[in-house]
């Protein structure tokens, strides 16, 4: 199934992406929101605090913490006490949370935290890339990437559903590209309270901090049990694979919008060149593909929606007939000198019958714009690979040679 949207124009209004996300949080009925300002996530938490100031979020406390470290730490306590919890952050803020991220997933607390993906210092840069969340890939959070602001908002409700599922109980990081999605105004449907109530059951955890049943959270595990804790966490991630799909499908049933589950495919079935990408670049790539298709070129798109858990089987299935696989990454693993998505794609094709060449392009670092011409240029190189094989496995795109 490919992404579908019932365009209910009478329900749509032009709002900022951050506002749509904040509204989605509101109708998910959170109990505790914590926030520390950091550009460009601020609009989300500002809108939420305005909702609080206007009395629009009942049974909710909003904590203005003194750091991102405490933003997430406060939610550890709140979530363990049985609250539905939300925060949003980006870049340096997310990196400051690094230790807490592990703690949250290890304690199996279903916190949802939007990440407005931004580059990481140094040099300091407030613009979009995905280095921040990609660098947190091993912290045990479910990590999903939205292609547009409507999906970023809808993903909040889906995230709570996935996170709080008793077979999962893992935190979720719905990611949206900074500025490109967080600061854009466009027609969107604001999630309807009645439909969200139908879609998202109340948070009723099995274990809570409760004097009537005084349990201990966060115990110390020695080598005799630590392995099993890690194993169970990994199993929960496996379980999340089907729950991500389920959350997307049921969202479609209730709201009439679908963006893919673990992945989405666009003009992919007979594609010789398949572009693999995540986030806001998807829309631009789709426009480019439409133009190329109209000229009869077999180019398609595999959108990776769930980066963690990584949808190995779905990716293999989607790529089985590709002749060249082109991976776009708004991040880089220094020393390997390729993007994380590229590495993952290659890894999941190994030990299979698929032997299509995989080439990686690192794009859009620190807000460098990715116009259609850049995508076209990348596809030109993919055509060369199809005819004469790989020369460069992974490379930067649009490097300004005159500065080097």
């Amino acid at each position, binding site marked *: 199934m490919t992404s579908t949207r019932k365009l209910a124009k009478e329900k749509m209004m032009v709002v900022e992406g951050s506002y749509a996300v904040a509204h989605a949080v509101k109708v998910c009925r959170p109990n505790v929101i914590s926030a520390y300002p950091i550009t460009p996530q601020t609009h989300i938490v500002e809108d939420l605090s305005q909702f609080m100031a206007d009395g629009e979020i009942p049974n909710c406390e909003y904590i203005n913490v003194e750091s991102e470290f405490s933003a997430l730490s406060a939610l550890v306590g709140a979530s363990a006490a049985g609250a539905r919890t939300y925060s949003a952050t980006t870049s340096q803020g997310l990196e400051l949370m690094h230790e807490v991220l592990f703690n949250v997933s*290890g*304690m*199996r*607390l279903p916190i949802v935290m939007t990440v407005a993906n931004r580059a990481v210092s140094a040099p300091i840069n407030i613009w979009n890339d995905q280095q921040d969340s990609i660098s947190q890939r091993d912290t045990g959070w479910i990590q999903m990437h939205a292609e547009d602001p409507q999906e970023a908002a809808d993903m909040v409700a889906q995230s709570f559903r996935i996170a709080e599922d008793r077979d999962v*109980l893992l935190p979720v990081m719905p990611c949206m590209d900074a500025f490109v999605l967080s600061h854009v105004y466009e027609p969107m449907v604001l999630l309807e309270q009645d439909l969200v109530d139908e879609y998202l059951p109340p948070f009723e955890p*099995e*274990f809570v901090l409760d004097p009537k049943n*005084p*349990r*201990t*959270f*966060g*115990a110390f*595990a020695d080598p005799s*049990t630590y392995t*099993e*804790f890690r194993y*169970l966490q990994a199993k*929960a991630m496996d379980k999340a694979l089907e729950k991500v799909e389920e959350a997307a499908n049921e969202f479609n049933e209730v709201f009439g919008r679908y963006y893919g589950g673990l992945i989405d495919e666009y003009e992919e079935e007979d594609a010789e060149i398949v572009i693999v990408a995540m986030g806001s670049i998807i829309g631009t790539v789709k426009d480019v593909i439409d133009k190329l298709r109209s000229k009869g070129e077999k180019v398609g798109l595999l959108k990776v929606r769930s980066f963690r858990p990584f949808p190995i089987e779905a990716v293999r299935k989607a790529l089985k007939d590709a002749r060249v696989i082109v991976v776009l990454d708004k991040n880089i693993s220094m020393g390997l000198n390729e993007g994380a998505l590229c590495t993952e794609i290659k890894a999941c094709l190994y030990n299979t019958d698929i032997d299509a060449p995989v080439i990686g392009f690192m794009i859009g670092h620190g807000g460098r714009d990715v116009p259609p011409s850049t995508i076209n240029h990348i596809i030109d190189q993919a055509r060369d690979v199809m005819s004469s094989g790989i020369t460069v496995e992974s490379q930067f795109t649009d490097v300004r040679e005159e500065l080097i």
Partner: protein
Amino acid sequence: MKILPGGVCEPRSTMVNKTGGWRTYRPVFDYNKCIKCKLCELLCPDMSVLPRDDGFFEIDYDFCKGCGICANECPKDAIEMVLEEK
């Protein structure tokens, strides 16, 4: 044992861990001297001084680690630390 999500533990479950084996000296009450002041019970870091129905106390040797705080602090020297015979 089955690991619960997040490693939640049941309350007061260290009671299965009998720390009495750590002891070198054991406290022994001299009830003739004891004035039932309860200080030993209050100060015991191992919660192993237990009240009896008659108002006196007894040592829970399952848990007493033999630190000797009770004997050291007893205002009437009613507790003697005696070398454990193993």
